[in-house]
């Protein structure tokens, strides 16, 4: 399951989608809006997406994770639009028979997402609006 959506993440629903009776565990990554960014206070955030490409890229990353780590299921839900401090940005869930692979695959998905899925954060800080680009603030 890959979703790029404006709505909040329904954690219970995505957990149901990733869990399975043959898996012994689910490792999850939940990204949330921080109240600071490089020392500046953040009031809120908006996220822009190139949706068609983001879905394609996430589907590719999901397939890679399934194949490389032999895990049972991978789900990714990423939000866009306006978000407040504490809101969920992204949920990644991985189910597997063994926890090692689940941890590795979950980390792989978030690492790759941050490199190659077309989503951009704009932070609204005390100093004004700031685009986050890669690891830099512009």
């Amino acid at each position, binding site marked *: 399951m890959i979703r790029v959506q404006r709505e909040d993440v329904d954690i219970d629903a995505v957990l149901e989608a990733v869990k399975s009776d043959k898996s012994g565990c689910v490792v999850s990554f939940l990204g949330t809006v921080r109240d600071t960014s490089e020392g500046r206070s953040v009031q809120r955030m908006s996220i822009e997406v190139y949706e068609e490409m983001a879905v*394609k890229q996430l589907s590719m990353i999901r397939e890679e994770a399934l194949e490389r780590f032999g895990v049972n299921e991978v789900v990714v839900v990423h939000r866009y639009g306006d978000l407040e401090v504490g809101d969920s940005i992204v949920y990644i869930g991985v189910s597997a028979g063994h926890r090692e692979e689940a941890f590795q695959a979950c980390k792989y998905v978030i690492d790759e997402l941050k490199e190659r899925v077309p989503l951009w954060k704009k932070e609204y800080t005390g100093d004004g609006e700031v*685009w986050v680009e890669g690891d830099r603030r512009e």
Partner: protein
Amino acid sequence: MKVRVKYFASFRDMTGKMEESLEVPEGITVEGLREHIKGLYDKMARRNQVLVAVNGAFVPLETVVREGDNVAFFPPVSGG
């Protein structure tokens, strides 16, 4: 030939456009198109990192752009 070009995030601010249709020579590469656009927009010319995707996929810079392709220009991504 005509190609459709999209801009995202700060590049949308720099160009003042979400997308546009550009007339470019046949046989132009992704790299050539990137240089063409840097020539049109000063602020983009000053950017070291200009990512390009063709039809929703990252492609090598020497890839030839075809009529009707959807080309997207954007800064390094920051989701997650």
